[in-house]
């Protein structure tokens, strides 16, 4: 048997203690860098979510008043309305081709394709000088019923019929959620952890403005001016 010798108890304990220190230092380094990258990622995600919400709002505002120059000019629709409760945007979703003239008192309208029309939706009928907003209360094939009845004569060649779309933005302050509601449906959450959401519309220069802030440690405020081109006074009649 040769001169074999194991580690003494003190040597083993010392090496264990050193190993422990090295492992703990490594873990600490890993933890610090992980926290750092997570914080960076969280900040980027917050920023991206806030900017995406503003992009969505801007896209909707771009459609405010689209094809609705006459009813907006006549005061039948707002097109774009901002108040303390939030923002309301009205625009035409699609044009419906009329099959024949509409007589005063008529309640049934025939179109080429009524597949996009649902009960409860609104349609706007107008010619160059007058317009009316109706609620759809029945749909059968390519014919649908309107309420109220047509109040004037609308010639097929000179009149245009549009399916109205209404989008509403509102802040659920208790939950901190901006909800986007389309055509009276349930409000889908657009952005969560919201601390502040304000929107305004200035008819004078025709600009909309939105400001929002998140419930994060960093007190960043995201602001944007938007141009609702279809709401321009030059378009109204």
């Amino acid at each position, binding site marked *: 048997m040769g001169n074999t010798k194991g580690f003494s108890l003190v040597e083993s304990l010392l090496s264990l203690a050193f190993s422990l220190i090295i492992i703990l230092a490594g873990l600490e*380094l890993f933890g610090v860098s992980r926290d750092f*990258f997570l914080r960076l990622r969280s900040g980027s995600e917050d920023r991206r979510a806030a900017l995406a919400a503003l992009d969505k709002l801007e896209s909707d505002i771009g459609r405010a008043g689209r094809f609705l120059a006459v009813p907006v000019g006549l005061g039948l629709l707002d097109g774009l309305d901002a108040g303390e409760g939030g923002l309301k945007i009205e625009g035409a979703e699609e044009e419906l081709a009329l099959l024949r003239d509409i007589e005063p008192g008529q309640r049934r309208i025939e179109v080429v394709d009524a597949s996009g029309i649902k009960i409860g939706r609104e349609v706007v009928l107008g010619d160059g000088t007058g317009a009316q907003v109706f609620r759809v209360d029945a749909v059968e094939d390519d014919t649908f019923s309107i309420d109220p009845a047509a109040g004037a004569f609308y010639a097929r060649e000179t009149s245009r019929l549009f399916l109205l779309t209404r989008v509403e933005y509102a802040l659920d302050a208790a939950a901190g959620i901006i909800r986007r509601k389309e055509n009276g449906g349930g409000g889908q959450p657009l952005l969560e952890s919201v601390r502040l959401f304000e929107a305004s519309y200035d008819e004078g220069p*025709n600009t909309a403005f939105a400001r929002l802030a998140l419930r994060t440690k960093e007190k960043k405020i995201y602001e944007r*001016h*938007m141009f609702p081109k279809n709401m*321009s006074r030059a*378009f109204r009649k």
Partner: protein
Amino acid sequence: MARRGFTLIETLVSLAMAAFLISGTAGLMIRAARLKIKSDILTASAGLVRDRLARLRSLSFDDPDLEEGGHGEVIADRATGRVFRVSWQVEDGSGGRKAVRLRAEPERSPERAVEARVLLDASLGF
């Protein structure tokens, strides 16, 4: 009894490896932070150009802000906490058209500027 500790070389090599690891991680963190700041500033510059563009488009064709020549403003962006200079140059072309060149640049790092060009036509009516 033959007792032997670590040699100087062994100690230095292990220290160098530890330092290399730590400095590599720290360098990566610093680089990531810088890239994020750079990206935030570029996004903010683009946002300010877009914001000013929306406001210019809403103006009437003969508004003082759309007169031929240079215009500018200084804006404190509340999303990045930085100060930006937004400037725009208007060239009055013939036939009721104006060419606008916009630029937004952070005051401390003007190389991170964003530019946009837009053509305004009086016949559009807004």
